[in-house]
């Protein structure tokens, strides 16, 4: 059951990615990107990472995609005027690199996948306690300082956005 779901969602992600690249209208490309993000969120659920799946949908598919959409609208790309292929010299290197990547994947798949030493939080332990509970517990005890610094980091991002957009 889980294996079938994995194959279905992986196929949806790959097909959406192909459509994303070949779509002429950039707004439709973004909609395909949303499809990819949601199918990857399902893959995270299959791995037992519920919090990451929720973040993927709330932050990426929800907020970041709105940002991407506004960037497309700011750039004023209409469907009529096609994007000029200014980087046609990239074609041959791209094909070569694609073959290199595929053969690298092939070598990895044929050899035994190296597994590192198992850490403190095994998947069985995470499954028992609950993914989100464990993240919450660690975030507010062991990783408290990075967590609080995150708020300052986002504050800086807000200051940057205000200064750039409100410049006279």
């Amino acid at each position: 059951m889980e294996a079938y779901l994995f194959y279905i969602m992986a196929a949806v992600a790959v097909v959406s990615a192909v459509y994303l690249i070949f779509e002429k209208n950039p707004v439709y490309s973004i909609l395909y990107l949303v499809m990819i993000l949601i199918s990857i969120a399902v893959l995270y659920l299959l791995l037992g990472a519920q919090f990451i799946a929720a973040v993927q949908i709330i932050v990426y598919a929800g907020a970041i995609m709105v940002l991407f959409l506004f960037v497309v609208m700011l750039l004023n790309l209409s469907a009529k005027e096609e994007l000029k292929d200014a980087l046609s010299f990239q074609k041959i290197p791209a094909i070569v690199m694609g073959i290199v990547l595929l053969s690298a994947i092939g070598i990895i798949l044929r050899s035994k996948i190296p597994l590192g030493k198992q850490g403190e939080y095994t998947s069985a332990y995470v499954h028992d306690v609950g993914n989100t509970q464990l993240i919450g517990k660690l975030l507010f005890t062991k990783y408290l300082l990075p967590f609080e610094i995150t708020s300052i980091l986002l504050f800086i991002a807000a200051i940057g956005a205000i200064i750039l957009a409100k410049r006279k």
Partner: protein
Amino acid sequence: MVQYLPILILLILAFGFAITNIVLSVLLGTQKPTPEKLTPYECGIDPVGSAHERFSVKFYLIAMLFVIFDIEVVFLYPWAVAFQSLKLFGFIEILIFVGIFLICYFYIWKRGGLEWE
């Protein structure tokens, strides 16, 4: 995976509702298009110019601020789930976290980030 079955059923119902309605309206409805019917809005003034125009950077600012506060809200989920074991300590931590965002909010407000001018 059984616990996600309600979400799957909800998804199927939502997609099914939309698809059924579109198919039914195509099958049952009569199509007699007039220029008036084909305009995006049937009432109000006629649309002028193309919709494919450059958007103001103000939209981008609003989207950026939305992302920032969205990330803040996402961090409240693990806190809420682990609240029982974190007790008062966790509550004070989240107060500091939300407090910094409150300062951030007031900063944006005072700098006119929420004004449309």
